[in-house]
């Protein structure tokens, strides 16, 4: 337990201390909120989509979580390159404890990021329909964070350096974001895009947040949470396995 706690605490300290990182990682969600929210909003309303900020806000929260969580997982490569990973790997603790501590730490940071973005959406006029349900929204954020931190950790466990980073950005993170229904509805898009969005876990995170905060849903909260939970459990196992195979 103490091992998991100290690794979790380390991630939080690192996050808290790198203010440029906190501010920098908020830049993108703010840009999406302002550029899309105010730029596309009138068009969206004209097309009969309703209030675009209401549609967009949960999507941007999911975006912030997706990015932060994936990066926190991938940060493992830094620890490997700067040698800190070795310090944990020769300690008399199990690899499972190490990887759980890391993933919980990364997921906590990503959830915090999601909450900060939620507060920012209030500034541009977003009003959640039901305040009582907000703790459930935080729960969904944490589940989504766990999912992507595990994914990032799993990928990073197989990489030795940062050469693959651009690949992950362009072929995993960005498509996950664009094809999750976070920015625009995908119901009337071509079949192929809809299929991709259905196998994209972020779709379920966005849908769950929308259900809780806006009251619109396609699948229902239970189904969303079940899918997220199942994928998270699977990715946790995969990342633990791959992490246990790391040689330094």
């Amino acid at each position, binding site marked *: 337990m103490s*091992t998991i706690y100290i690794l979790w605490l380390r991630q939080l300290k*690192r996050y808290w201390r790198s203010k440029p990182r906190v501010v920098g990682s908020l830049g993108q969600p703010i840009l999406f909120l302002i550029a899309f929210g105010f730029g596309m909003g009138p068009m969206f309303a004209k097309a009969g989509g309703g209030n675009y900020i209401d549609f967009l806000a949960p999507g941007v929260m999911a975006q912030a979580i997706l990015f932060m969580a994936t990066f926190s997982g991938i940060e493992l490569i830094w620890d490997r390159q700067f040698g*800190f990973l070795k*310090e944990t790997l020769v300690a008399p603790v199990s690899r499972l404890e190490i990887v759980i501590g890391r993933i919980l730490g990364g997921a906590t940071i990503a959830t915090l990021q999601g909450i900060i973005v939620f507060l920012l959406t209030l500034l541009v006029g977003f009003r959640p329909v039901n305040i009582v349900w907000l703790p459930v929204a935080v729960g969904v954020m944490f589940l989504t964070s766990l999912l992507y931190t595990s994914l990032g950790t799993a990928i990073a466990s197989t990489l030795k350096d940062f050469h693959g980073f651009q690949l992950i950005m362009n072929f995993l993170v960005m498509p996950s974001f664009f094809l999750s229904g976070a920015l625009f509805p995908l119901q009337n898009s071509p079949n192929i895009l809809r299929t991709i969005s259905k196998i994209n876990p972020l779709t379920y995170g966005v849908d769950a947040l929308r259900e809780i905060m806006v009251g619109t849903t396609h699948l229902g909260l239970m189904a969303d949470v079940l899918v997220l939970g199942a994928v998270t459990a699977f990715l946790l196992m995969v990342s633990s396995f791959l992490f246990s195979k790391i040689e330094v």
Partner: protein
Amino acid sequence: MNKSNQNIIEVNNLTKKFNDFTAVDNISFNVKRGEIFAFLGPNGAGKTTTIKMLTTLLKPTKGTIQVNGFNPVFNQDEVRRSFGIVFQDPSLDDELTALENIEFHGVLYKVPREVRVRRIEELLLIVELWERRNDLIKTFSGGMKRRLEVARGLLHHPQIFFLDEPTLGLDPQTRNKIWDYIKELNQKEQTTIFFTTHYLEEAEKMAQIIAIIDHGKIIIHGTLRELREKTQTNSLEGAFIKLTGKSIREESGNGLDRMRMFRNRGMKRR
């Protein structure tokens, strides 16, 4: 049974292969409890690979190892509790303070809180970093980082202390200081010291037993005097060059060695 006379490290027919390349080739040696043991050899000779196997980071392809009576493959945690290590490359978290780094280590090694607090103060005073304990590592010089790593490696009272080129790139003052701490530790706590270095005068001054490895094989093993007698030279450097010198290297050098040298050169340039 008198434990102090036992071998704390026993290596028998140890081999490590990476695909076709044999990094460590059927080596056997022992290190006695309380001994200061120098493990020398040119770059790429197999020193670090051997240390990785002794410290549970790599699994041997063949052969057996006993560290403090335990097998690093089957009794990982017991072996890990037995040793402290200073790696060849820095292994601190730059974003944390000196105190946080060393406390992190204490928690991982389950050093009880009261012991931890006392021992951390004692060690940081010895390595002269107590005043800087609340500073972030990224503000530390290379020598300060090394001293902190030495202190950290000793926090859990290890019986063996591995140091892989602990003084690489440090100025003579810092190098002397680090060896002073290590010598003191060896005398006060009877900690076994297992180290590698390219500064042969350090091995000459510190080590009771010296082994030289090249191309994955141990080519000589004994006290300084024995080494000098066997090679008919009058210094360790003389013996080292004689044993690992150019003619011998080319005899068994292979394409992979050349590729490695090439890669290392390229990396340095960057």
